[in-house]
């Protein structure tokens, strides 16, 4: 029963693989046309007028370079042996009375000591969490999943007699269709993430990629995001025929714009949008990159995953209910 959907998913996936292929070729061209390898080692160049330059190796294997600058600052460059991530610590004397203070902004930390010294540490080359790759891939695959979400409506567009005269129930047929699509989405997600990693590696940034326990949560988020989007499209279009493509063309701009309207106070539009956005998977994606929520739920990846799982389940139930009621 899954054969037709397998062919259909492959037909759509080929287009996305071609897009990925084009991006990969462009990355290769970029790599060999001047931008070159972004080697993270030896990025910080010791100035020519530096004094007391000392190269050493710390007990943990880190390569250390220290020198005094022309303005009286003392600079220590520490290079991690495994990732080549550099931290550059600049300690400079400060005139007048000072009190201990500490601040951290992005990859810069500033520490002021009681003794009139200000140490500024810049972590050069942030690590690249795999989460970023998952996020980018999830957006890409969401487009794919929204097209696959038209599966039931495409069956409804003149093929029900063929679909429903197979020795399987309507629910069984729909379940196999959904199963194939989910496998295709997962495969494309994996391929896209792998390609991003390969491109980063080509540019010599592979060592900076990190994954931790949070990455697993992001993986769940990405999966919930693409599946909920798929289920949402399916629920909206299951009873439609050719109009399903129009519905999808309208849906995309709507889900993209809605989260940006949650702060509109005029006519209480923000509250209404927040309510609608609770079933908008893209709103959870917006929430992922900010500390505020665009839905009725509080911010947090856990809430987002849970909500999207509910959207997916409700979407599938609504789709199946429509599918069962259709007539050829």
């Amino acid at each position, binding site marked *: *029963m899954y*054969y*037709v959907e397998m*062919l259909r998913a492959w*037909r759509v996936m080929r287009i996305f693989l071609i897009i990925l292929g084009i991006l990969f070729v462009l990355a290769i061209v970029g790599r060999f046309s001047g931008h070159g390898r972004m080697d993270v080692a030896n990025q910080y160049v010791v100035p020519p007028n530096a004094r007391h330059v000392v190269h050493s190796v710390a007990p943990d294997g880190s390569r250390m370079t220290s020198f005094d600058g022309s303005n009286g600052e003392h600079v220590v460059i520490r290079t991690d042996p495994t990732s080549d991530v550099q931290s550059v610590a600049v300690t400079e004397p400060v005139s007048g009375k000072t009190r201990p203070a500490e601040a951290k902004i992005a990859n810069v930390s500033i520490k002021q000591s009681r003794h009139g010294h200000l140490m500024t540490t810049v972590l050069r080359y942030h690590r690249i969490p795999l989460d970023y790759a998952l996020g980018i891939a999830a957006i890409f695959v969401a487009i794919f999943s929204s097209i696959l979400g038209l599966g039931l409506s495409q069956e409804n567009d*003149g*093929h*029900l*007699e*063929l679909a*429903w*005269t*197979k*020795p*399987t*129930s*309507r629910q*069984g047929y729909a379940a196999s269709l959904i199963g194939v699509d989910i496998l295709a989405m997962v495969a494309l997600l994996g391929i896209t993430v792998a390609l991003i990693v390969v491109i980063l590696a080509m540019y010599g940034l592979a060592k900076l990629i990190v994954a931790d326990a949070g990455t697993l949560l992001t993986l769940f988020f990405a999966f919930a995001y693409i599946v909920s989007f798929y289920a949402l499209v399916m629920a909206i279009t299951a009873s439609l025929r050719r109009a399903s493509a129009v519905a999808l063309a309208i849906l995309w701009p709507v889900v993209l714009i809605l989260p940006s309207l949650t702060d509109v106070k005029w006519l209480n539009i923000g509250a209404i949008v927040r309510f609608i956005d609770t079933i908008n998977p893209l709103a959870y994606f917006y929430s992922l990159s900010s500390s505020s929520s665009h839905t009725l739920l509080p911010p947090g990846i856990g809430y987002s995953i849970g909500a999207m799982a509910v959207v997916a389940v409700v979407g599938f139930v609504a789709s199946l209910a429509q599918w069962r009621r259709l*007539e*050829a």
Partner: protein
Amino acid sequence: MSTISIQNLSKSYGSLAALTHFSANIEQGSVFGLLGPNGAGKTTAFKCMLGLARADTGTVLFDGAPLEPHMFERIGYIPERSVLYDWMTLAEHLEMQRRAFSRYDANRARELLALFSLEPRKRVRSLSKGMRTAAAVVMAFAANPDILILDEPTTGLDPVNQRAVLKLMIDASAQGKTIIFSSHQIGQVERAAETIAILKEGKLLLSGAVDDLKSGWKIVEGIFESDQFSIDGISSDPDVQRIERTGRILRVSVRSDSDGIARRMTELGARDVRTLDLNLEDIFLGAVEARPKEQSLDVLR
């Protein structure tokens, strides 16, 4: 599983009664022809039988049991219009069937492809209407079902392929398979069907064995000198079912006393009066055009 019992099947689309209290019993190994003008309810009847449309009332039993999804293993269906996927090749459609039906016969599929000169690598979108019909026939027969429900299975086919489909149906029936089909080609139905039902505007007008329907009925045909002739004593005859007047020719469908009508025609001035056996077309036209004879005559005049 082959005896099909249809009881009191009705289906409406809004205010339109597409099918009204349709009943029929179809025996295993028989060929059942469903006839009717366009919009008679034939396709609706098939769809309700197969659960593709929800009947408002009535039951359909296959060997005494209501239709369940697993029974489609033994039911082949060719819809009235092409439902194939335009973007798939014929080979992919057959692969779909192979995966879906455990009784699928790949050798049979190859034979049938050759019979209809179909190229399996072609995409459906590149096939003509007739070739799509032929492809649907190949798919249905290759699945080796016990029951074949064929809704106008010769649509768009050339006479050679129409004949081939008809032969497939007759051969399948000879092997004990049950065939239910509809067609506008009454000659085909007459050749293949043992029993028929005639529908009009969703209502069953007539049903029974073709031989039984024909027996006792005759056609009396006479040619007059001019097209101005009287039919006194013919139109009032209670045994006359239908009178067809075309120019100088008078054609009368009559039960039992055909000799009496022939004599009366001669008395009225007809020459070349002859008595013929009723054919299925006469039965069909008699049923779907049935109206009071005088009214029928008015229309025919």
